[in-house]
């Protein structure tokens, strides 16, 4: 029963490299899932029943199937149809698609919370539909849903650890290597647990600050 953290010191640069890879994957997946989420939210709330049906099926499927199954589907499936991507690209794509399903749900509720009076005023002012969507609907919807979007992002960071199962050596993957090098799995995984927890805590603090900044002119919103 020894708990000796100094044993990890020589492996810190290696772990940091993994952390950088995790950060890259998360940021790319965040951008990807925001893009997908906005498009899908627009489809779900659109007037066309077919488009909103299709978008709903996408959200429903990717929210109810485990991420690891989706990941294997893409990782083993894509080469089958002649698309050869490395583990990093596959992981980012899978994360974006899965994250997009959750993001679109958040943005959708942001869109639905917009006062219809605002939209009518915009229509009366003679703005075209794409302009209303870009200049009025999206800014309001994104601003009100900063907090829920943040928890989707935090979930994305936690989910990115699953990318280690498709041979990608991000933070969890490199920790696995260090654990088998040093034979000290308890120390390394305990440190990893605390590292992830503090990272997501910092992210949630940043999101709270961003929320307050974006909604600073809103009265009654703390």
């Amino acid at each position, binding site marked *: *029963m020894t708990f000796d953290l100094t044993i990890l010191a020589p492996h810190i640069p290696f772990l940091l490299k993994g952390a950088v890879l995790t950060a890259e994957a998360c940021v790319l997946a965040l951008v990807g899932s925001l893009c997908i989420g906005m498009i899908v939210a627009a489809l779900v709330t659109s007037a066309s029943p077919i488009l909103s049906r299709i978008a709903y099926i996408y959200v429903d499927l990717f929210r*109810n199937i485990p991420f*690891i199954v989706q990941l294997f589907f893409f990782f083993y499936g894509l080469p089958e149809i002649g698309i050869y991507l490395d583990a990093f690209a596959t992981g980012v794509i899978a994360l974006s698609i899965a994250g997009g399903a959750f993001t679109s749900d958040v943005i959708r509720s942001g869109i639905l919370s917009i006062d219809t009076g605002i939209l009518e005023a915009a229509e009366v002012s003679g703005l075209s539909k794409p302009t209303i969507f870009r200049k009025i609907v999206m800014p309001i919807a994104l601003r009100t849903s900063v907090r829920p979007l943040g928890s989707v992002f935090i979930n994305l960071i936690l989910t990115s650890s699953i990318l280690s199962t498709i041979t990608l050596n991000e933070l969890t993957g490199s920790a696995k290597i260090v654990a088998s090098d040093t034979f000290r799995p308890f120390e390394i995984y305990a440190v990893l*647990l605390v590292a*992830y927890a503090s990272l997501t805590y910092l992210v949630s603090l940043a999101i709270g600050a961003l929320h307050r900044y974006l909604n600073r002119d809103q009265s009654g919103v703390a």
Partner: protein
Amino acid sequence: MRYTSFTSYDIVLLAQGLGVSLALFLATTIIGLLLGSLWAVIRFYRVPVLTQIVTVFAELLKNSPVLVQLFLVFFGLPAFAKLNVTPVEAAVITLSGNTAAFVYVIAVSAIESIGRDQIEAARVFGLSRWQVLRHIIAPQAMAFAIGPLTGLLVNQLQVTSLISVIGVVDLTKIGNILNLRTLKPFVVWAMVGALYYVMAKLIAYGGATLEKRLRAHTAWKGL
């Protein structure tokens, strides 16, 4: 000799994997519900040191990847405490703890959703703290919590797929085995995904039905 095509035994394999996934899901859900409610009760009674420990522990469990928790229990515990942990034991410990952390949060907010005045009124009538919890808070908190709980359970079902990584032969592991043998990833993973999807939908449906029943007393019955 390689069997690269699907055989009728694959259905048995899939059913077996499904059974393992479901059994582990049910077991960890029950343990998690009990443990999480217990933590919430500890907080309700404001037990001095325990409350802080529970809060920190739940925060740690909620904010770290389940995969890392699994590795910590499965690889870490044997090395640290010289305990022998089988994959299934590690899976049960981790998933129960994880479920408990989220149940704790839901239970705490459910308890807090009940108005102070109700509790004060009950105390004035001479009910003990336990009686208040049992007869005033619990029934209302249940109706409040069932919605978030259903969402949580749908999520936890998907989390069970991670235990395939430490070698539990659940549905995802079976998918892996079939995938390596038949080399038909699209068919295999679509099938596995469909099974998970159906299970998730069943849980959501069950939760909605239960919620309707628990909220029956507040439903609009007409004039």
